[in-house]
């Protein structure tokens, strides 16, 4: 199997889906000629034409809205926000039009919304956000957040084939820093199934996206403790059974994410556990997240805000000793 970067795996996923089905097309800013701000769509315009890789005007609502319209008319659009932060500009079309379409009128909206997200490279307050939790408060949207090249490709395939609007959170900091084996050809990674990134029995760290790697690094050799790392992969709908199974096994949980704290995915996971696995718990459910602040630009500030390996380690140690 070839080794691809996380970014190449996404590109590969896009290419496979576009080859597989003529109705799949991409739209977004600078994705055609330029190949996208991060070069994720590089080569696609050359292979599939500028019509199927549309360089749109700077108009997020029109991008999302056009994707919705094309999707209900039988196409399978993959829309890109140049940075996930800009989804705030197309927010209404997502949460009010796309999300509610099927519930209201039984009409499916098979579209993918690519959201390059996350920080760690001095992107500052407007190029570092992790907006995924908003969409759990907008029933009707699915959200995936791959952490490996393999899943990046497989979840892209599943997202494209799913008849619902799927937000695809691709973590920018993983784009070129992470490599892994990726199978040739099409394959689908099932939605709403956690991946146990490492088995363990003494404590569970639940994470997704780039933080899966922070979790793995932090717990690789933590005083010899057997720490399980659960990669959520799909954030909505959550794999509640997969989460609870690990909690029941280990009885101690640290929930880790890069997004800010209040009402984040971590809050939902903690609430789920506090409600459904109370009796299995041997300690408080601990969150390690960014605090409730905009993500600052300057490296020392950004480092202070984004969860670091040491923090995860400290949280695990404290909970292990509980």
């Amino acid at each position, binding site marked *: 199997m070839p080794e691809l970067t996380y970014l190449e795996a996404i590109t590969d996923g896009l290419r496979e889906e576009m080859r597989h089905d003529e109705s799949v097309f991409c739209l977004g800013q600078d994705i055609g000629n330029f190949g996208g701000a991060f070069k994720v769509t590089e080569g696609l315009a050359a292979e599939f034409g500028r019509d199927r890789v549309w360089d749109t*005007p700077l108009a997020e609502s029109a991008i999302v809205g056009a994707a919705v319209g094309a999707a209900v008319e039988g196409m399978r659009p993959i829309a890109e926000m140049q940075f996930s932060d800009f989804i705030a500009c197309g927010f209404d079309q997502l949460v009010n039009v796309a999300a509610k379409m099927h*519930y209201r009128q039984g009409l499916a909206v098979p579209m993918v919304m690519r959201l390059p997200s996350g920080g760690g490279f001095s992107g500052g307050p407007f190029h570092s956000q992790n907006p995924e939790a908003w969409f759990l408060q907008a029933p009707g949207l699915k959200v995936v957040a791959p952490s490996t090249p393999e899943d990046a490709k497989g979840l892209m395939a599943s997202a494209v084939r799913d008849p619902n609007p799927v937000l695809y959170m691709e973590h920018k900091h993983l784009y070129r820093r992470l490599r892994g084996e990726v199978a040739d050809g099409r394959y689908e990674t099932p939605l709403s199934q956690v991946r146990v990134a490492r088995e363990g029995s003494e404590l569970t760290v639940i994470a997704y996206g780039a933080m899966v790697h922070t979790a793995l690094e932090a717990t690789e050799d933590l005083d010899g403790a057997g720490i399980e790392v659960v990669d959520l992969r799909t954030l909505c709908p959550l794999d509640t059974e997969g989460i609870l199974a690990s909690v029941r096994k280990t009885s101690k949980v640290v929930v880790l994410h890069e997004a800010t704290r209040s009402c984040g995915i971590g809050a939902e996971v903690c609430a789920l556990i506090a409600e459904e696995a109370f009796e299995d718990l041997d300690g408080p459910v601990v969150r390690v997240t960014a605090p409730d602040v905009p993500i600052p630009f300057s490296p020392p500030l950004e480092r202070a805000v984004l969860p670091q390996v040491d923090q995860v380690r400290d949280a695990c140690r404290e909970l292990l000793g509980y």
Partner: protein
Amino acid sequence: MATPTARPAQLEPRERDTAAQLTVEDRRELLRYMLLMRATEERALGLYRQGKVPGSHYDGRGQEAVSVGSAFALSPRDRACILHRDLGAHLIRGVTPGRVLAQMMGRVGGVTNGRDGNMHFGDPGLGCVGMVSMLPDMAPVACGLALAFQMRREPRVAMTWFGDGSTANGQWHEAMNVAGVRRLPIVFILENNQYAYSTPNELEFAVDPVERAATYGFAGVKVDGNDVEAVFQAAAEACDRARVGGGPTLIQAETMRMHGHGAHDDMSYVPPELFEHWAARDPIETFEKRLGEEGLETESLHKAVAETLERETEWALACPMPDPATAAEGVFATEDPVLGDGHAPWSRWSGRAATDA
């Protein structure tokens, strides 16, 4: 002044259909649909007053010529995103009055089976995508429909309606601009009914929004929105143009909302003279008078419509309320979308294969 549009037409221009021709039967149909719209809305208002319609109630009294005249130009495989003032367009696409009444009453059998209410519906099986409340969110969505036609090289048209108020919104602009840049096969119907809720035109825009069409690179046409034939003519031309790759059209239909924004609204903000001015130009009366002067019989239409309404109301009232146990179902789809084709009563379409639109 206008620089050439940026994107060449996607379709090879083909012979234009000869100028839209309405048969006598077509003209009677226009009247019939206007009567049916008004009768259905009157009935719905009655049901609302009886407490059978939950929530609020909105209608398009006075605007019948806009919705009927424009939707009548559509072919079966065209698609429509219809506004809350445009019941006539739904009726033309094939939604029965009974389903509309059931919709308003929140019943099973209504177009959304109680999931949504008011005019927030569209029958996907009839080529409609139901509006959301946020205005004018369907404009970008209609661009997406048109984009699909353009990409697949299909001679089809998306039509969408919005009010004067909506022209102030950013999504309106994004849709117009994108439609202009890509020369999408789309027809925008701007219903200027003089007010956005209580807000008069002069607080909404400084210049008539139809002027903007040229700055988006396409035609803007202003018509008397109370003249159903004038609206039809403009819409038919716009559809023809769109179908052959000539790009979008913005049609601004001047009309007046003769009821409050909703049933709760007494319109006290409308000067009586303005109201009287428009009352004297009722689109149904005007058109019926014209037909009468040409010797067409129209009385039987009233009777037929009244009978239809009786039957349809009965049907609607027999519809059950939805089962609360189903309330949480259907948030996610398990199957791909299938938009069906709509009715297309204009004689031009009869006898043609639906695919040959």
